């Protein structure tokens, strides 16, 4: 009595309506960046101080960047992302009091359980590289959010590419 019949017709229409991923990418990434979790450092600082305070999330975001990206279903650190992790290691060196949570995230393509594992792998790839670069493991913790916390809204290639990420959070 509380069920409604789903016709194969409706399912077919749904499929048809969903088959144009590339066209909506530009509009989605525009609104996505406004909905992203990055804090905008310029708004939170008063005019008196030039630039963010040392060792803060704001400084890390401005000077290093607060995330790197991964390929689909991969957890190895891409060659074009290594520089960010190396800069992160240097930043941790010059801010010895800072401790870091490395988050791992997946795009929504995949199951929730598998994406938790994938996010955990991505976070650990960053942790492992930081340790290889000399960071003390005691300053690093990892957490996976799987596909639960997308940075960019929408269901398209551009959003997914930005959601397959590891984010760096200063504790």
């Amino acid at each position, binding site marked *: *009595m*509380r*069920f*409604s*019949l*789903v016709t194969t017709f409706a*399912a077919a229409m*749904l*499929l048809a309506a*969903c088959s144009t991923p590339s066209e*909506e990418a530009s*509009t*989605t990434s525009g*609104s*996505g960046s406004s*909905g992203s*979790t990055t804090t905008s450092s310029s708004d939170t600082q008063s005019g008196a101080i030039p630039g963010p305070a040392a060792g803060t999330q704001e400084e890390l975001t401005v000077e290093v960047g607060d995330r790197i990206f991964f390929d689909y*279903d991969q957890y190895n650190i891409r060659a074009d992302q290594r520089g960010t992790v190396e800069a992160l290691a240097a930043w941790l060196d010059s801010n010895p009091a800072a401790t870091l*949570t490395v988050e791992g995230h997946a795009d*929504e*393509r*995949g*199951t*929730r*359980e*598998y994406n*938790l*594992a*994938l996010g*955990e*792998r991505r976070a*650990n*790839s960053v*942790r*492992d590289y930081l340790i290889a670069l000399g960071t003390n493991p005691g300053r690093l913790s*990892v*957490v*996976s*959010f*799987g596909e*639960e*916390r*997308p*940075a960019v*809204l*929408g*269901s398209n290639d551009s*959003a997914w590419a930005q959601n397959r990420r590891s984010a760096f959070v200063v*504790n």
Partner: protein
Amino acid sequence: MMSMQRFKSRLAGQSPRLAPALLAAAVMAFAAAVVAPAGPAQAQLQVDITRGFVEPLPIAIADFFGEIPEEQKLGNDIAAVVSANLERSGLFRPVDRGAFIQDASSLRSGPRYGDWRLINAQALVAGNIQLQGDGRMRVQFRLWDVFSEAQMTGLQYTTTPANWRNIAHRISDQIYQRLTGESGYFTTQIVYVAEQGPQNRRIKRLAIMDQDGENHRFLTSGNETVLTPRFSPSTREITYLAFQRSGGREVPRVYLFNLDTGQQEVLGEFPGMTFAPRFSTEGNSVILSMAKDGNTEVYGIDLRTRRQQRLTNHPGIDTSPSYSPDSSQIVFNSDRGGRAQLYVMNSDGSNVRRISQGKGSYYTPVWSPRGDLIAFTRQHAGEFYIGIMRADGSGERMLVRDYNVEAPTWAPNGRVLSYFRTTRADSQGRITSKIFTIDLTGFNERELVTPLDGSDPAWSPLIP
């Protein structure tokens, strides 16, 4: 406490059988007795459910008779729930009661079979309700085969009137079992994740309801993200993942929720993230994934000692474990071969073999309660599927295909599956996720309507 009496027949006398004692708070007390048939005729009516598409069997379900308005109300309500259950199974077509010739009152002295043949009812259900002096209600029902003019089953229940819906489900199970030869699945609940809000601020709460969507209630407040709830074999406990907030951080961990006490507890303090929990067949342990030092392995956690046992040993991702109903084997998900595929191992972790062979990726395997099949999520060429295969990987069949369908769960008779479907998000991150059920044959897909969006359904075993 629950006690259940069975009577082989009025003449043979009673042979009482006590079911195991269960936690008192949630289980209603009732007594059931077989109502003997009027004559010795053997009924032959059977729904053939081995074929793919079944023409639903026309069944007439009369309002249960009552002398007074309170009884009549209960009688109408029970008949309506029975009718809706049987209709939803896809195997039965309740005959329009406006066409009925014989009334509920005269049915008490037996059916006039000709009246029911005339409206093409092949099976007939009738019953009556009596409110007793002690405040309890007596419900009696009978099922007849109209064409061979024989009673197929009859039962009598005595319980409190508040349990009328539960009794309606038990009667539905009896009718389903008698006509299909398989056990019913109507006296069950579904626990799931109720969802609302945009993609990046989606609120996810545990919720539970009867299999028909009734008696819905939320179990958690929504302050913490929850995922993947699963029932214990006793139906009184749930294990699930929650992102617990502590000191501004969120930590994903496996929890237990006791449905009788409402108490939640973390499964244990483990060195790494724990997720993807499921109870063992006996309910004395939970298998899950634990990520230690960057490697996700399958572990068993003994619920009494909380001792952990590592079951996989591979540098790849090993997750989503599910026991076979005889506990001898575990099916799980691993990317050890490159992409995510399904593997089966002995329950001690030995003899690992890959069972999925198709293109794309396979996830969330779950063993059928009958033991013969494994349901899974498959992703291939940009689409998702819910599929089934035999435990050795043969006979793979896709039941549903869509942009995103995920996380199958079995009804306890291994005949019906539930899963969820998510739509593409728009640029504002608006999505919908809905729970569906489908027959094993791939027919009869229905939406299970929930107050909010729904995902991660888990079907309970039959409630004792």
